[in-house]
């Protein structure tokens, strides 16, 4: 199976008044065509920064300092702003948390969909409205002809997220990055939105990166899971493998902190300790070291990313389930 996206050694630094924040360090993972990969980790672990870096949407203070993000043959990190703008929305699209504020508050939602369709050649001035109605119908919005004229404040959060999905799907992208797409929605709506994304992906063969701090949600929806901690990808494995036999101590903690029933736990803060300060040069090689009970001397020297078994990568010197 070919990869929809392959991220290699992606590092991002933010230049702030308080110093340089090394938000991402050599992040690597791949997403197969049509596959759903979940990116999980507690708040501040760098999930959104990863997504923004791939999309070229980092704010001015953030800089990609190393790495590649191959979308097919194209390295998104090396693409010119103009060619990136042609790729965004067409080959890779993104949806966000807080769908209501992610939509233009003073533009009818149908027009916002039409804007994207016209931009990527999917519609002309003449058929844009008809195409927008079609798109709203496809994401299951009732009475779509009337709803094209609605403003975001007139729609519920769930409806707004459907509109966002319609915008993202406007040009049938190869890859969808969904950054916490259901946070802030009620439980039933969450399921409906996730079902809709899955359905869209299945219809068009689109790959999905599902960003969430809800491991239960990831387990339910993703074929593979990448666990992030403090700007490192610490473990990547197939969902069943990861849940049954986590090898990185952090993943194990995360799994232990998640209720077994596919629940709605918002926070995974029950992992003891806090994320390390990512400023300056004195960050330990393994950023989990201060919180880890398996720590040994070599942990502080190098990060040890490797493939422990086929399709199961970790970044740890003394993984679980292996004789130390």
């Amino acid at each position, binding site marked *: 199976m070919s990869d929809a996206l392959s991220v290699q050694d992606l590092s991002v630094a933010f230049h702030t008044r308080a110093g340089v924040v090394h938000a991402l360090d050599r992040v690597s993972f791949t997403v197969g065509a049509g596959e759903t990969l979940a990116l999980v980790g507690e708040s501040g672990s760098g999930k959104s920064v990863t997504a923004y870096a791939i999309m070229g949407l980092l704010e001015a203070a953030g800089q990609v300092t190393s790495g590649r993000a191959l979308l097919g043959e194209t390295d998104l990190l090396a693409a010119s702003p103009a060619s990136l*703008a042609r790729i965004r*929305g067409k080959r890779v699209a993104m949806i966000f948390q807080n769908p209501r504020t992610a939509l233009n508050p*003073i533009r009818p939602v149908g027009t916002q969909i039409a*804007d*994207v369709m016209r*931009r*990527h050649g999917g519609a002309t001035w003449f058929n844009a409205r008809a195409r927008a109605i079609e798109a709203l119908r496809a994401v299951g919005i009732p009475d779509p002809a009337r709803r094209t004229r609605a403003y975001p404040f007139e729609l519920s959060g769930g409806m707004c997220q459907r509109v966002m999905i319609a915008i*993202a799907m406007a040009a049938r992208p190869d890859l969808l990055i969904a950054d916490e797409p259901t946070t802030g929605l009620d439980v039933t709506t969450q399921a409906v939105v996730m079902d809709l994304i899955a359905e869209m992906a299945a219809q068009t063969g689109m790959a999905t990166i599902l960003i969430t701090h809800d491991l239960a949600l990831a387990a339910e929806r993703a074929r593979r899971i990448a666990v992030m901690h403090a700007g490192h990808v610490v473990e990547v494995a197939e969902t069943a493998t990861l849940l049954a036999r986590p090898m990185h101590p952090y993943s194990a903690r995360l799994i232990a902190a998640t209720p077994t029933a596919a629940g709605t736990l918002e926070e995974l803060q029950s992992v003891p300790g806090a994320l390390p300060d990512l400023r300056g040069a004195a960050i330990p090689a393994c950023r989990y070291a201060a919180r880890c009970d398996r720590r040994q001397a070599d942990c502080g020297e190098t990060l040890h990313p490797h493939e422990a078994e086929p399709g199961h990568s970790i970044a740890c010197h003394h993984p679980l389930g292996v004789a130390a």
Partner: protein
Amino acid sequence: MRQVLLRLAAALPTLCGVVVVTFLLTRVLPGDTATYFAGPTASAEAIEQIRRELGLDLPLPEQFWRYVVALTKGDLGMSLTTGQPVRAEIATRLPASAELTLCALVLAIAIAMPLGVLAAVRQGSLIDHACRVLTTAGVSLPVFFTGLLLVYVFYFVLGWMPAPLGRLDAFATAPPQVSGFYLIDTLLAGDTGTFRAAAAQIVLPATTLALFALAPIARITRASMLAVLGSEFIRTARASGLSGPTVVITYALRNALLPVVTVLGMVFSFLLGANVLVEKVFAWPGIGSYAVEALIASDFAPVQGFVLTMAVLYVLLNLGIDLLNRAIDPRARHGA
């Protein structure tokens, strides 16, 4: 439409308040009208005589009653200095002030908004610094100073501009009044020569006022654009690959306009105030200079007429701003 009528009705108490307050203010201000008009050599009897003729010997409530009764008939009284009905004078002078103020506002917007937008889009660039310098200079230079400076440079030294002597030079004749705006009326009359003369006269005073109005408009445009450019729906627009101009103009600027429109309303009312000075410097026959002269002469009726006109203008202005906000923001249409 109902909204508009409601708003106008809600402004009525304010206008009544303005009527009462201006009446009282003109009575308690220092300076005695009768003494002023009788002249320095007049005898006490002569002064009393004038006072009676003007009705100033009547008790205040009665004076007020007469004033209000006249007002309801649209009568603003007579100016004692010019001997003309106040209403007629305001009717000819208001268009002069309005033309000047609107020209200044249009000029200021035409420069300040693109500047503010560019400064926000290219934060920290040369344009951004230029914007900062201009806004600082704009607020720190007094209007009469920039006015005099412009006259000195462009009329006296360079000779590019006509003498600062009102709306038209002595050789031109005013166009037949339609809108009262010379720039429009001359064109309606097909008189391009007079149009050019009128335009030449208005350039310097309008520039003076525009320089004053630039700063707040550029500043709010920049700040508002920065806030909007950082918002989540702009991120969505970029993530969807929308082109730069679409993102900046269709998505960002339209949203950024809301606070700008509100500030425009404020700037417009500042301009009405700054007008008084500029009209003096350029001998512009507007209502600002009219009111100042009347105030110095303790001539009540023009002052009252001026304040009342201004109050009505403010009410209309706020209504206009409100309607503009509704046109831009669907949430405002929905809310009320």
